[in-house]
C-alpha cells in the first residue's frame, strides 16, 4: 500500500506532486535548520570568539529577505497546488483503453458494496477491475460517512448518505491491491479493508460472466439485510436485479441504515452484533 509505489496514473501524479513539494520545501527548510543549530552553537555564551552585537535588532535588508523567502516558496507551491488541483480533480476524466467501467460504491456499516450496473453484478469487499480501462466511480453511503481510498491508485473521496461523489481512476498493472476506508465510521471501521483485483481486460468479461451466475441476488430486500451493522468476513458476490439500485440508495428511497440498539437504559450503546468483535 506504499504511496510511493503507484499503480495508476492518478496515484503517480499525486505522488509526484507530493515528492516535488517536499523537495521544493527542503531547499529552504534544510538551510534554515542548519542555520538555527549553527547560530545557537556559535553564539553560545561560553564562546569568546563570537562577537556580541546586542544592537543588531533591526535590518531592513534582512527583513526583506525573510519575508521574501517564504513568500517566493509559497508562490511556487501555490502554482503547483492550483495546477495540480485542476489536473487531479477527482471528477476529471482519466482516459484509458477500452470502454470505461462504471462502478457504484456504497459504504455500509462496515463493509463495501461495489455495484457494476452495466454488468448487472455486485460484490462485497472485493473490487475487480480490468487493467488499463477508465474506472468511473459513483459513491454514496448507506449510513455514516466513510472515505473510499485505494492508496496505490490515488485520490480518496468521501462517501455520504443522500449524496453522490465522483472519482475516476485507472489501474495500469495486473495484480492485487488493497483499499480501505479513510474516515472513522464506528466499531467495525478497521474491518472495512477491501481487496482490489486488477485483472487483464481479456479476463474481465469471463469474471463478469462467472459472477453473474451467482446464486445470490442483490435487490432491495437483500440490500437491507446487508446494510445491518456487522462485519463481512467472506467475499460474497451477487447478481444485480435492478440496475437502478444505487439511485434508490443515493436518493434515500431506501432509508439510511439503522444504528446499534442500546443494551441498557443507562446509555452504554452496543455495536451491532457480536461479529464486531
Amino acid at each position, binding site marked *: *500500500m*506504499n504511496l*510511493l509505489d503507484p499503480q495508476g496514473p492518478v*496515484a503517480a501524479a499525486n*505522488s509526484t*506532486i*507530493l515528492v516535488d*513539494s517536499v523537495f521544493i520545501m527542503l531547499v529552504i527548510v534544510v538551510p*534554515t535548520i542548519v542555520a*538555527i543549530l549553527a547560530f545557537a552553537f556559535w*553564539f553560545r*555564551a561560553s564562546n569568546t570568539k*563570537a562577537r*556580541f*552585537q*546586542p544592537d*543588531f*535588532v*533591526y535590518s531592513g535588508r*534582512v527583513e526583506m529577505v*525573510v*519575508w521574501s*523567502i*517564504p513568500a517566493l516558496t*509559497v508562490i511556487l*507551491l501555490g502554482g503547483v*497546488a492550483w495546477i*495540480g*488541483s*485542476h489536473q487531479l*480533480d*477527482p*471528477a476529471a476524466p482519466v482516459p484509458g483503453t477500452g470502454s470505461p467501467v462504471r462502478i457504484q460504491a456504497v459504504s455500509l456499516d462496515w463493509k463495501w458494496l461495489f455495484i457494476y450496473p452495466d454488468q448487472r453484478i455486485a460484490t462485497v469487499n472485493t473490487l475487480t477491475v480490468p487493467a488499463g480501462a477508465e474506472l468511473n466511480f459513483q459513491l454514496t453511503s448507506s449510513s*455514516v*460517512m466513510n472515505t473510499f481510498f485505494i492508496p496505490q491508485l*490515488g*485520490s*480518496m473521496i468521501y462517501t455520504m*448518505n443522500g449524496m453522490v*461523489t465522483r472519482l475516476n481512476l485507472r489501474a495500469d498493472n495486473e495484480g492485487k491491491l*488493497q483499499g*480501505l476506508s*479513510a474516515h472513522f465510521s464506528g*466499531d*467495525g*471501521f*478497521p474491518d472495512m*479493508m477491501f481487496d482490489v483485483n486488477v485483472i487483464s481486460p481479456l479476463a474481465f468479461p469471463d469474471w463478469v460472466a462467472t459472477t453473474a451466475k451467482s446464486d445470490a441476488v442483490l435487490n432491495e430486500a437483500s440490500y437491507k439485510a446487508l446494510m445491518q451493522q456487522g462485519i463481512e468476513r467472506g467475499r460474497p458476490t451477487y447478481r444485480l436485479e435492478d440496475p437502478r439500485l444505487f439511485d434508490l440508495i443515493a436518493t*434515500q428511497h431506501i*432509508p439510511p441504515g439503522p444504528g*446499534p*440498539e*442500546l443494551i*441498557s*437504559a*443507562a*446509555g*452504554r*450503546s452496543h*455495536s451491532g452484533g457480536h461479529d464486531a468483535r
Partner: protein
Amino acid sequence: MLGKLDWSAIPFDQPIPLVAGAVVLVAILAVLIWVVVKGHLPYLWDEWITSVDHKRIGVMYILLASVMLLRGGSDAIMMRIQQAVAYQSQGYLPPEHYNQIFSAHGTIMIFFVAMPFVIGLMNLVVPLQLGVRDVAFPTLNSVGFWLTATGALLVNISLVVGEFARTGWLAFPPLSGLSYSPGVGVDYYAWSLQISGVGTLVAGINLVTTVLKLRTRGMNYLRMPMFCWTTLASNLLIVSAFPILTATLAMLLLDRYLGFHFFTNEAGGNVMMFMNLIWAWGHPEVYILVLPAFGIFSEVVSTFSGKALFGYRSMVLATMAICVVSFMVWLHHFFTMGAGPDVNAIFGIASMIIAIPTGVKIYNWLFTMYGGRIRFATPMLWSVGFMVTFIIGGLTGVLVAVPPADFMLHNSMFLVAHFHNVIIGGVLFGAFAGFEYWFPKAFGFRLDERWGKAAFWFTFTGFYVTFMPLYIAGMLGMTRRLQHYDVAAWRPWMIVAAIGMAVLSIGVICQIMQLVVSIRNREALRDRTGDPWDGRSLEWATSSPPPVFNFAFHPDVRGEDAYWDMKTRAQQQSFEHDVPEYQDIEMPRNSPTGFICAFFASIMGFALIWHIWWMVILGGLGAFATFVVFAWRDHDEYVIPAEEVARIDRINLEERRSLVSMAGAV
C-alpha cells in the same frame, strides 16, 4: 427519578476504566482527607478556590492542565500499545473501548491540556508584563477557570459512569447523531465542551479587554512585549471562534435531544454543514493554541540571547496576519469532500499563505540569536528544540495543504504525525518553556536545571521516535483510528512508535521529578531578586512571587523591553531612588462566585447528560442565583493601606539593593 441513570451505567465488566476510576477516586479522597485533617481547608478556600488574583487563577489553570496531561497521556500510552500489539489480532482493547480512548485523548489534550495551559500562562504573565495590578474582570476570570474545570470533571466522570464519545474528538455526524450513537458518550462530549466553552469565551473576553484597556503609563501598543501581542491575537480568535463551536454543538444537541434535523441523514439534514462549522472554529483553534506559544518563544529567545527581539514590528505584523488569515482556511480539513478544483486550490493556497508569517517568525528568532550571548537554560533548550521540530511540522503541513497530495494523505497516520508535530513541537514545547521560565516568578524559586534538561532531552528524543514512524506508516497507506490491522508493513513502525512513547513517558517522569526535587531544595533555589534570568519585560521588575497588587507603583514605560530599559538607566544613574510616597491600593475582593457557579453547572451538565430533568432545573437555577447574588454585591474591593504597601515593597527593595551592592563589591 434518575432519568437514564441506573447501575448498568457502571462498566463492571470492563476492568481497565473501573480500576483507573477507582484509583483516581481513592487518590482524590486521600487528598481531601489530608487537606481537612491537616486543617488546610480554610487556606485552600481563602487563598485559592475563591481567589480572583490573576496569578493564582493562572497557577490553577496550569495545575488543571498538568493533571489532565497525565490523563490524556495515559490514553496515548494505551493507544500506542494497542496498535503495537493488534496486528492480525484484536489486541487488548475491544473497539468500543479503544474508540472512546482516542476520542477522549483528542478532546482532553486540546480542550483540557493545551487550552488551560496557555490560558494559565497568559493569566499569570500578561498583567505583569503590562505593568498592571489585575485583569479587567477578576471575578469573571475565576468563573472562566471553574467552568473549564467543570468540563474536565464531566469528561473524567464518563470514565466510570456511562461512556465517553466513540466518534473521534470532533464527533462528526451522522455518526455522532442519535441513530448511530444512541449512548450517552456524545452527550458527555458535547455538554463538557459547552460548559468549558463558556469558560474559555469569558477568559478570552477578559484577556482581550485587559490588553486593550489596562496598560501602565507609556505602555503603548508598539511597546508591548511580544507575548502580550500574541495573547491579544489568540484571544481575539477565541472571542470570534468559540461562539461558532458553541452554536455548532448546540445544533448537534438539538438533533440529539429534541429531534431536530440539522445534521441528520434524513429530513434535509446536512452533515457537510457540521464539517464546515466545526472547522470554522477548529482551524482558528490551532492558532489560538500556537500563537501564545510563539509569544513565549519570543520572550525566551530574546532573554537568553541577551538581545531585544529581532524585527519586533515585523513580528507584530506576522502575528496579526496569522490571526486574520487563520479564519480563511478551514476547508483544507476536507479537500476530499469533492468540492471541486477551484475551491480546493483557493483554500490550499490560503493555507500556504499562513506559512509566510510563520516562516518570518522563525527567521526573526534566528536573527535574535545571531550576535547574542546565548545561555542554554532549560527554557532556551525547549525553544531551540521547538524551532527545529516546528519547521518539520510546517513542511508536512504545507504538504497537506496541496490538494493532490492531501488526496493521498488525508486522515492518514501521516496527518496524525503532522499535527502532533506542530502541537507537541509547538504548543507543548512552548508551554514547557513558559513553565520553566515563569515558574520562579510564580513561586519564588527556580526549578532544578538538571532534571529540567533531562526532561527536555527525553521528551525531544521521545517525540521523534514516536512520530517519525507515524509519518512512514502514513506513507504506507495506514489510516488513523484503526483498532486492529492486518498489514504486515505497518507493524514495525507501530512497535517503534510504542518504544518512543516509553521514552516520552520518561520525559514526563523527569518533569515530575524536577518539580519534587525543586520543591525540596527550594531554599537553595530561592529567587530573591525577582529577576532570575536577567529579564527584559516588566514581570521581572517586581518580586518573586509578586505581592497581590503586583506593583507598588505603576511602572513608567519609555520604550520596548521596559524593564531592560529601567535596568540600563539605573546603572547609568545612581541606584538610589527618592523615597517614594506610597498610596493605598484597592484590590478586588475574593469571591466564591466562580466555584459555586461551576458547582451548579456541573450538576446541570451531569443531569442533562442523563436526562434527569428536575436536577437540570435545580442546577440551572442555582447557577443563575449565584450570578444574581454576585451582581447585587455592595462591596467588591478592599483597601491595602499605604503602610502595608510600603512594608511589602521595602522588603523587596532591600533584597534587591543588598544583591546589587554585593555584586558591586565583588
